[in-house]
């Protein structure tokens, strides 16, 4: 009883503070299904008109193509970042590598480095290698930029696995590879799941790199498409359509968060012991 009462003022404050936020989200969803008279706040009619972009490609461009591109980018991030990070993280955490400290410091610096400053250099490199305006180029660059984060996170998870487990495995007659695969990887599974989700979300939400490095129309991803929707012309600007495409774009993110929220917390909880 007393506990609940003690929490009561806190709850009120939290609700008050987050009220504007909740209102915005509420209207974001509401506006996708309704129309309001000009200048009014409350809607007066229900409509599915704003979702027409799903079948009418003239409304917001080829949404399905963009969704597919975004999915390809996001899944490629998982495919690149997770395997490389899990191997590199293990090496950094466990193996007596030459220049190990240098690598560690390098990863930290790269992690903190603002990627935007590299953009022009990357642009020239991609031009030179012929990967400019290809999805592969974007995937490689985005993957490389995300690797320091992934490696660092995975290193933290490997650090938390006791040395003795590895020693015991080797004593039991297993090779280093068997030990890694059958004994160590299962211990860092929460890390792998969390990192996969993060990599996916990072790829899903990326705007800058595809915009700059792959501006071709067949490579358009959702974030770029969304931007084109407002940048196109500002006279016939359809507010509700923009919101609806935005909601459509956000749906997978919300779904992932709902499914994996506990797993994602492990990255911040147990995973980052230096």
């Amino acid at each position, binding site marked *: 009883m007393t506990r609940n009462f003690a929490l009561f003022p806190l709850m009120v404050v939290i609700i008050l503070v987050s009220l504007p936020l909740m209102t915005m989200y509420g209207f974001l969803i509401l506006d996708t299904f309704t129309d309001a008279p000009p200048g009014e706040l409350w809607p007066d009619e229900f409509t599915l008109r704003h979702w027409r972009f799903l079948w009418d490609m003239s409304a917001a461009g080829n949404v399905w193509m963009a969704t597919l591109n975004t999915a390809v980018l996001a899944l490629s991030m998982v495919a690149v970042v997770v395997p490389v990070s899990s191997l590199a993280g293990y090496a950094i955490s466990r193996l007596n590598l030459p220049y190990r400290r240098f690598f560690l410091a390098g990863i930290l610096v790269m992690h903190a480095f603002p990627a935007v400053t590299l953009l022009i250099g990357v642009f020239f490199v991609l031009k030179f290698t012929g990967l400019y305006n290809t999805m592969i180029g974007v995937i490689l660059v985005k993957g490389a930029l995300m690797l320091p984060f992934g490696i660092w996170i995975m290193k933290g998870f490997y650090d938390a696995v006791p040395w003795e487990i590895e020693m015991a495995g080797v004593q039991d007659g*297993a090779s280093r590879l068997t030990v890694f695969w059958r004994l160590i990887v299962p211990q860092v599974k929460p890390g792998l799941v969390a990192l996969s989700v993060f990599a996916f979300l990072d790829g899903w939400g990326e705007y800058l790199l595809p915009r700059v490095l792959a501006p071709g129309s067949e490579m358009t991803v959702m974030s770029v498409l969304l931007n084109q929707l407002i940048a196109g012309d500002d006279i016939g600007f359809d507010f509700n359509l923009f919101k609806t495409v935005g909601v459509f774009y956000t749906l997978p993110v919300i779904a992932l968060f709902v499914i994996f929220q506990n797993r994602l917390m492990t990255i911040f909880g147990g995973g980052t012991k230096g």
Partner: protein
Amino acid sequence: MRLHLDNFTKCFDGTPVIEGLNLTVEDGEMLALLGPSGCGKSTTLLSICGIYRADGGRILFGDRDVSALPSQRRNVGVVFQNYALYPHLTVEENIAFPLTVQKKRTDKAEVARQVREIAELIHIEALLSRRPAQLSGGQQQRVALARALVRKPDVLLLDEPLANLDAKLRLEMRSEIRRLQLETGITAILVTHDQVEAMSMCDRVAIMDKGEILQIDSPTEMYRAPANRFVAGFLGNPPITFLDGQTAQEGRFAMAEGLTLPLPAHLRNMPAGRPIALGLRPEHFGHGGAGQASGRVTFVEPQGREMLFDVQAAPGVTLRSIQPTRDDVAIGDEVTWSIDADRMLAFDADGRRL
């Protein structure tokens, strides 16, 4: 299988921590490596199992030189201090792991049979389907033992196996490990810093200090006749009391603080004026004998069956006595108790026993 370390040397960052160590463990024997932290006992153990590479000398299992072999090919069973069970596998899978990673495949039924056999030996049949997190410390210890033994290793290495258990379980596992060792007849090495463990579980004890083996002997012999002052001070609980002084006239020993005692019988004709140290164990003070010391009781520690007394025999000289519980002596009492002078240990200035 007989285990032999021949001139074994191990360095860390170029500094030798163990130099030219020789050690033989006979077939079926259980030997304790006993010593304070940092004495090199764990280093020796980890070198035997192959996690560390020896920097010199040979490690022989029987006649087989294994010094160049990786851990996987040495056939050594190891029980680690924290057991190192695989948390994502069940007890059964944990025990079966060494069998399933072997080069020559053992079929499933055979693996299950061997796991069951070892589980019965160690009394954990009922736990096979559980996971390590659902086990108590003692049960985890048993599983670790089973996993180490299932492969029928040539040598069993135990690295502080009882350190993480509470006092009662420790007693139980002490005899349990010894029973298993005797039943399987396996050659075993126990690394510990607990003298009670070493003495109660092992055929022989090797005392190590600063990377050197100071003495190898059976527990009773080592207790009765320690080679030097370090060994004498390490064994025995409550510990031995050292009295630093000189030999005096007529086969006596005198301390600068004023206490004099008769020398042990075999040293009676030592010339006077030699610096020596006497070691007096608490069970030899107050239990009859030729010597005598009187003083004030400064501390009494009841232990149930026995009592421990600290007696200040001279300024700065405290003698310790252990006696069956008695309530006629209290702190502050003046007592005169006998000292069994012939059973005192004497050490020369370099710490060697005389």
